[in-house]
C-alpha cells in the first residue's frame, strides 16, 4: 500500500520511462502539483543521465549530423517556438474542461463510473474514473492486483486517512476499504486497474459484476 505520494521505486520506473501510459499519467498529474516528488524525480533523472554516461559509447557516423542539420534547416523558425507555447494540462486534453459534465454512468448508490480505457489504445490496463457524491459512501471492497489511484477533485476518507486532490494511492488485495467522500465537492478519482475490484459486503457481493 502506497499512500499520498508514489514510492521511490515507482518514481524510478517513471524516470526510466518504463511505466505504462496510464500509470505515467497518474504520476505526471501528481508531480505537477507536488514539488517534493518533482524534486525526487529530478534527482532520479540525474541518476539516469549518470547511468547513460557510464555505459559504453558507440560511434555515430558523421552523416547523421549532416542529416540533423538538413532537418533543422528545413524547418520554419516557428517550429522552434512551438515548444514554448502554453501547455494545456494532459487531463484537460484527455477529458475536457469540466469533469462533472462527463457522461457518468450511475452505479451502486452514490458511485458513478466512466471507463476511459479506450483513450489509451494498446495498453492492457483498465482506466476508470470514479465519482462519489459529496458525503456519499462507496460499498466496502478489496482490490485484485494493484490499483493505482489519483484524486482529481474533492477528497475521500477511509480508515487510513483523508486523501485530498492530487494525492496518490496504490491499493492491492490486502487493502479492504470503504471510502467516503468528504468536503462539499463530489470526489472524482482516476484509477488504473490491473484487475477488477472485488466487493466484500454480504449483499453487494451479488452486484459484483456491476462495479469495477
Amino acid at each position, binding site marked *: 500500500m502506497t499512500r*499520498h505520494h508514489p514510492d521511490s521505486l515507482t518514481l524510478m520506473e517513471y524516470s526510466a520511462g518504463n511505466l505504462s501510459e496510464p500509470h505515467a499519467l497518474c504520476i505526471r498529474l501528481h508531480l505537477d502539483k507536488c514539488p517534493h516528488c518533482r524534486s525526487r524525480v529530478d534527482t532520479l533523472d540525474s541518476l539516469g543521465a549518470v547511468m547513460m554516461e557510464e555505459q559504453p559509447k558507440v560511434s555515430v557516423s558523421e552523416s547523421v549530423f549532416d542529416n540533423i542539420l538538413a532537418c533543422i534547416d528545413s524547418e520554419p523558425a516557428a517550429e522552434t517556438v512551438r515548444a514554448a507555447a502554453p501547455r494545456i494540462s494532459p487531463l484537460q486534453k484527455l477529458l475536457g474542461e469540466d469533469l462533472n459534465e462527463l457522461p457518468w454512468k450511475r452505479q451502486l448508490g452514490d458511485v458513478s463510473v466512466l471507463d476511459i480505457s479506450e483513450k489509451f489504445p494498446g495498453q492492457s490496463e483498465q482506466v476508470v474514473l470514479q465519482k462519489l457524491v459529496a458525503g456519499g459512501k462507496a460499498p466496502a471492497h478489496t482490490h485484485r492486483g494493484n490499483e493505482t489511484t489519483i484524486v482529481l477533485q474533492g477528497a475521500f476518507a477511509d480508515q487510513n486517512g483523508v486523501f485530498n486532490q492530487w494525492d496518490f494511492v496504490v491499493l492491492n488485495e490486502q487493502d479492504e476499504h470503504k471510502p467516503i467522500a468528504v468536503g462539499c465537492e463530489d470526489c472524482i478519482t482516476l484509477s488504473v486497474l490491473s484487475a477488477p475490484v472485488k466487493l466484500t459486503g454480504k449483499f453487494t457481493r451479488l452486484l459484483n459484476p456491476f462495479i469495477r
Partner: protein
Amino acid sequence: MTTLDPKPAKPEGRKDPWSQLLDKVGKYQDREAYHALFEHFGPQIKYYAMANGLASHAEELVQEVFVSIWRRSCLYDWRKAAASTWIFTIARNQRIDMLRKMQRSSAEMLVETEDLWQIPGDNEDEPVTSLHRLMSERRIRESLSHLPEEQITVIAKVYMENKSHQMVADELDIPLGTVKSRVRLALNKLKVILQDQNV
C-alpha cells in the same frame, strides 16, 4: 569559439561545460557548440537505443533526439537541470515516442509523450533549485563507484534496457523482492531518496 575539457568538471554551483554549450545553442543557435554536444552525447544515445532493442533504429533515434534538442534549446535553463540530465530525459521521451509511433497510428495518440513524461524545467512555475540539483548530481557520480556490482546491474537494466523490476527479476532469476531491496539499498546509498513518504 568553443573550448572543451575532455571530461566535464564537477559542477560546483556553476555551469558544467556541457551545460555551457547547451546554453549557447539555446541563446545563439551556436552550431559549433551543437556539434560538440553531438560528439559527446550522440554515442551515449546510440548505445541507449541499442541496449533497449532499437538497434536497427539507433541512429534514427540519435537524429530525433538532436533535432528535439535544437528545437527545445531555447527553453533550457541550466539552473533547473544539467545538460546531461536534460538530454537524458529527451532521449527517454524520444525512445518512448518512437515505440508509440511504431505501435499505432498518430491519430490514436490522444496524449502526447511529453504530457506523460516531463522534461525538467518545462514547468515555469518550478522554483530554481540549482544548488540542490548540482549537489545531487555530483553525489550520484561519486557514490556510484562505491556501490556493489549487483546493485549497479539492476539500476542499469532499469534505466538502460528499460526493464521493469519484474523483468529484471525474471532475467536474473531472483525474486522480485530481492530486486526491489537492491534498488532501495542503492537509492539510499546514493541519497537519491532521503525517505519514502509512505506512512
